[in-house]
């Protein structure tokens, strides 16, 4: 198990190395990245079955420094494995969505693999220092990706993005160093709650941790950076990776919160709850007013992250697996919709067709698109239906008002997505011109059909792929 975990963790780095030395103007780098991610998925599936045998208590440690005492500890459980699988499948979907020119860009693929390495590291670490290493480490590749490959020209947006993330990392660093001051070494995430820390430093630790994570999840008034960035990205893979960044904040809450809630973190919960609910409504209304599917999708993903955050903060740990199942599906659906929208947009631009009714001319894409939109809004087509239902019911039970607001926000954004689907499939009656749009290729159809099958089977058993 330890060696498998180590190999899995090193895979993206190895991929980076191969991409670095691959031929300049060919598809070698793309093939390497694709192969690396697919191998990563296989390794995760193997880890699933291994963790069933070994159990979730398995930890692997590596002494990095003796003075100061820094021990990196790694381990996996079903929760983190589900998220890992979601991340890897999203990245593969993003790769499929790249254009032929983008597939030749070595720097893009190198940075993507490096980002995936950081994300994988974050999801398997079990001590605070290595958690910080990966948490802070992922901002560099994303910053470079957005700056170099996302066609965002406004430099102030990029600086804002980097500084927001750096503030979050530094706040987390302050918390970690404060913990270090009283413990003089690495602390397991599961031990933070039992450390003997005086009140004021404890407050510093908790406020630092909470603010660092909140900065990653776009809660008003700290949401500017991600909304500015997401609205300008034209590359599907970078869009997907940018939307994975809030996952790091959410995961931080889940891992740190496991031990802190419900005692010390209680003071922060009502504040985050109020701001979270307000942001959900605010973003749902903005999503409704947008005339672009990708921006509506961004609103949808933000609202979903906030739903999971509120579920984490307000509900018991027994709902954690529901969150994991739901998050897994959400990551894949979000990535698929981003890529399919881009295919539709490219086909539309090629033919010079109107946005309204574009899907009518591309029937294969239209069917897939409709399937994913309906799944996103919560129809019973995947395990997200069951699990979101459980989470929202529990939220209603915990606080009726909060539940009501959450429900309203989700309904609004669902309505917005459905309306956009309607617009894209609706041809005005007086239209006489027929367009010839290129539909998606057979290979892509098979790929996305496979994805839909994975999601659909999860409706019956969320872990059907684990043997």
């Amino acid at each position, binding site marked *: 198990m330890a060696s498998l975990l180590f190999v899995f963790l090193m895979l993206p780095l190895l991929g980076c190395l191969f991409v670095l030395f691959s031929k300049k103007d060919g598809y070698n780098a793309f093939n390497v990245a694709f192969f690396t991610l697919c191998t990563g998925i296989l390794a995760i599936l193997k880890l699933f079955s291994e963790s069933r045998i070994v159990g979730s208590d398995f930890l692997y440690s590596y002494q*990095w*420094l*003796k*003075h*100061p005492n*820094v021990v990196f500890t790694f381990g996996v459980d079903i929760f983190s494995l589900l998220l890992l699988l979601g991340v890897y499948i999203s990245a593969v979907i993003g790769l499929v969505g790249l254009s032929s020119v983008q597939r030749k860009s070595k*720097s893009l693929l190198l940075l993507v693999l490096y980002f995936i390495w950081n994300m994988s590291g974050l999801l398997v670490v079990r001590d605070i*220092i290595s958690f*910080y*290493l*990966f948490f*802070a*480490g992922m*901002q*560099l590749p994303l910053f*470079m990706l957005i*700056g*170099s490959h996302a066609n965002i020209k406004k*430099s102030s947006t*990029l*600086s804002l993005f*980097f*500084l927001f993330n*750096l*503030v979050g*990392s*530094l706040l987390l*660093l*302050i918390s970690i*160093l*404060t913990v*270090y*001051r009283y413990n003089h070494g690495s602390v397991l995430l599961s031990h933070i709650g039992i450390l003997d820390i005086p009140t004021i*430093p404890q407050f*510093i630790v908790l406020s630092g941790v909470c603010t660092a994570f909140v900065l990653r999840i776009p809660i008003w008034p700290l949401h500017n950076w991600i909304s500015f960035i997401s609205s300008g990205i034209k590359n599907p893979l970078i869009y997907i990776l940018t939307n994975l960044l809030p996952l790091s904040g959410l995961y931080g809450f889940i891992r740190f919160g496991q031990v802190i809630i419900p005692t010390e973190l209680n003071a922060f919960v009502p504040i985050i709850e109020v701001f979270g609910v307000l942001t959900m409504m605010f973003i749902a209304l903005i999503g409704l007013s947008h005339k672009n599917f990708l921006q509506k999708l961004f609103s949808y993903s933000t609202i979903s992250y906030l739903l999971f955050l509120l579920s984490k903060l307000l509900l018991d740990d027994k709902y954690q697996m529901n969150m994991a199942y739901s998050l897994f599906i959400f990551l894949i659906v979000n990535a698929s919709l981003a890529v399919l929208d881009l295919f539709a947009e490219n086909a539309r631009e090629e033919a010079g067709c109107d946005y309204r009714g574009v899907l009518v001319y591309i029937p294969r894409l239209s069917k897939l698109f409709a399937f994913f939109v309906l799944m996103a809004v919560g129809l019973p087509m995947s395990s997200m239906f069951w699990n979101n239902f459980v989470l929202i019911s529990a939220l209603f039970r915990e606080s009726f008002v909060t539940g009501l607001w959450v429900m309203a926000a989700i309904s609004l954004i669902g309505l917005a997505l459905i309306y956009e689907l309607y617009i894209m499939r609706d041809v005005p009656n007086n239209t006489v011109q027929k367009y010839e749009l290129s539909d998606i290729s057979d290979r892509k159809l098979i790929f996305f059909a496979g994805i839909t099958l994975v999601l659909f089977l999860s409706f019956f058993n969320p872990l059907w792929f684990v043997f």
Partner: protein
Amino acid sequence: MIENLVYLSPLLVLLIGILMMLVSDKDYINNSRCFRIARLVLLISFFLVIVFYNKALLPMITQGSHFTLLFECLLYLCAFVVLYLSKKWFMSLNEAGNIFCCGIFAAVLCGCLLIESHNLLLTVVMCVLFMLNNYILLFNFRKKKEYVLSTKTYMTIMFMCWALLIGALGILYYLQFDFSYNMLRTDLDVNQNNPLVFASMAAIVVSFVFLLGLAPLHFGFTEALGETILPVISYFLLVPVVACIGSFIQFNVYVLSPYYDKLKFFYEAVALLSIGIGAIGACSVQNIRKIFAYGAVSHLGLLMLILYHFTVKTVDSSFVYLFVYLLAMGGVCSTLFGLKIKGEYLEMLHEFCGAAYKRPYVAAMMTVFIFSLLGVPPFLGFLGTFSVLSRLAVYNLYELVYVLLMMLVLAYAYIQVIRTFYFEESKAVFDRADKGIYTTMLFNAVLMLVIMVNPEYLVEDFVLMIETVFE
């Protein structure tokens, strides 16, 4: 007598090198040969330093130990890197490099004696010579002859420091103190409450502050670096730092311990001021060399903030930070040598627009070195920053918050550099970088990677050598 001469051989080799460079005619000895000889001289001297590592260069007034060996090795390595990189500059512009080589030899000579010094008189003389050498380099290698203001500022502060040093020596001589560190320490213990003695010690400390380029005496350093040539900047960012830190640690541990309580507020103020001024100054300039000069002020301020406690652990942490700083700053210098347009080395930020598209590897390495300076994981800088900040967390949480805030400000300045390299477009055609530049960057990067994967070499083995200063 002969034995002493043998032990002195590293310095004699350097002296011979200085003489050779001074008498060489630039028409007779071309730049390539001049730098080859300079590197050879430096290597021979380095070899002799290692062979006679535990022998005093000048018996009675110097002392060799593992600590001095480590700092001398770093000093030689930095000087070697500066010479190696500078050769490209002087050759491409076809300018005589013998005076520059001379300056490097003189700096190494003064640095070695400063590091090994166990006598206040020698320390002061070496400080004076070091300052003079720095001034000569700055004055001789001004980019334009009309740039005199910054060198005048440097000269003014230098004269002030000289006056302070001479005054300090005069007071101690008047009070009939012995200048050897051991005896001086005893005398200081007895005269702890004598304000004149304290003032003289403070004067020496001020000179170190100036040599390190720390605030509030940073004006000469940062301004002059913006107006000098790239080899001199590399020299200033690397060589004097090593020599002064090594000597400063020894001077504090061996001599100044009776005054720790009185001096610590001064050190703390200098450190905090340097961190702040360095970070804000870096944001306020558009000259890339000044950005890194201000950055260096901020980084050295952070180093001082930990160092001034002078316990075994803080000195260890500071050394780790210093080592990481040298690697990253050395890397930054090498990338600056690798970027030029039509034979002209660049200095204003806007000139680097789009460098990443034309010279992707150089730009990528610059990014790695900048992030390393910022302490962003997983680069080696994180090790240094963590080492220092974890110590700071133990001493003072408020200072920790201040430091992190200033790191954020400094990050803004560094991000502008990366933004210019990667996100701005330009049609400028960058010249092909020399293979030697790539080799230096690669070597630097590999070293950083090895230490990051297994930091025990740095944190355990080197630190054991550092701790000999407390024996």
